[in-house]
């Protein structure tokens, strides 16, 4: 059973990342839960969701000691670093989060997602780049499954937008697999 937190500012597509990943994992035949944070959230505040993926029944959908965190903003790192499982992995959007982790028992993967998105011509795919990197690193689902999940969720989407999303996923995955990172 693996728990992942996706967190960032409202508007960064954080909930979408978690939702698409959850649908992809479900279609892969896994048990899944998706729990969005809800509450007295404010504009410009943090948005986050927890996705649990498992081969067996999932008891709690709550993010108690997550294995992975995909962090898109500085406040989100402050919020989640402390509760990560020992040895957990934090994937950071390094263009927004520059500071190093305080905990030494965690691994951090830094992805300059905004920069990579600009190279692709649209900052709208930052979340897809992060998701592609996440999928490539964790191997919890495939990029094809994510694309299928995306088509299932967003109906009547412009094909060029879908193509751009695919490019984003590929670029994120490539960044991990080609070992661009330090």
């Amino acid at each position, binding site marked *: 059973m693996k728990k992942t937190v996706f967190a960032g500012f409202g508007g960064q597509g954080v909930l979408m990342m978690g939702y698409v990943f959850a649908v992809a994992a479900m279609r892969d035949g896994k048990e899944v839960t998706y729990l969005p944070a809800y*509450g007295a959230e404010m504009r410009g505040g943090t948005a986050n969701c927890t996705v649990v993926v498992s081969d067996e029944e999932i*008891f709690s959908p709550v993010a108690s000691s997550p294995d992975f965190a995909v962090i898109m903003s500085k406040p989100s790192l402050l919020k989640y670093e402390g509760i990560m499982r020992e040895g957990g992995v934090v994937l950071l959007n390094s263009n927004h989060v520059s500071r190093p982790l305080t905990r030494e028992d965690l691994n951090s993967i830094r992805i300059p997602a905004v920069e990579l998105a600009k190279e692709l011509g649209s900052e709208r795919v930052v979340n897809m780049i992060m998701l592609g990197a996440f999928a490539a690193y964790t191997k919890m689902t495939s990029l094809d499954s994510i694309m299928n999940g995306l088509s299932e969720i967003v109906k009547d989407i412009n094909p060029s937008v879908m193509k751009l999303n695919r490019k984003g996923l590929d670029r994120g995955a490539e960044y991990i697999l080609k070992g661009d990172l330090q």
Partner: protein
Amino acid sequence: MNKKLLMRGSQVIGEAAIRAGCRFYAGYPITPQNELPEFMSGAMASLEGGTFIQAESEIAAINMVIGASMAGARAMTSSSSPGISLKQEGISFLAALELPAVIVNVMRGGPGLGNIAPSQGDYFQATRGGGHGDYRTIVLAPAHGQELADLTEKAFEYADRYRTPVMILADGMMGQMMEPVILPDPVNLDTLPPKPWVLDGAQGRPSRIIRSLILDTVGMEEHNWKLERKYKMISDEIPRAETYMTEDARLVVIAYGTAARIARGGIKRAREMGLKVGLLRPVTLWPFPERAIREMSRLVKDFMVFEMNTGQMIDDVKLSLEGRSNVHFYGRPGGVVSTPDELAKAISSLYYRQNLKKEG
């Protein structure tokens, strides 16, 4: 079979309600169940004969449900704890008038305005009637996404069969969480049993009266006994509980809803530690599955009630056992969701304190 979908709990209730033939929904916004009226507003608008009303208050909404039910519709309202308190008068009227209706309570922390986190603080209110007068409400307690769909369908069936209000007792976590669900097939409204009591215009037939004001004490007493006979029948026919790893258990946890799924995780961990622990999960909270618990007491001498409150269902467990076994309690009120590890610790601490490790 229908395709497996990843759906938010509140939306599952809405979709399942419509598939069960619900054609009237009235409600007033309150977190954490706003996604249910939001869904209903769109779904009812695109449905022939469907009505969605955002009422001016919770009280108005439940009274609109009374009217719709009187006219023969499968009708529903939903709210969260403070809003459900406001609906109690209407629920009492539904019971008195013998009208079917489904009321969804997506519980949050209380009392008062409390918070918007998942809680089980409304057990007493739900199972003891909540409103005034000598009546009962059928209370169904789903524990996961699929059951939200299945029990919503059941709720409409029970409401019609027994002509009585049925409450679905969910909580904020279930309302917000997405899980895989296979939705039931839509019912054909024409195949539902006829309702020979509805008020649909008396042209060509004698008039019917549905009322709860019965000033004559003899008549009121008879109405109360009539209701009581119905409640007795419901108590015989529909109590339901699910068990998990109870075959050889020396300690059985009793929990419902979200608490039950957390408990399953705790029990699995306790089993890995070699402790013989199981779970009994009431699916119907009223009627309470007394017999299932009483029968289990022949083999089990220790029960641990786990609730997301300070101890409410524990009363029903004690009443079911009539002193036959020890009843212990673990609870977290105020919207705290325990982790399976926390439950495993509570279970193991009790297990050793009661010396259950000892064979014999």
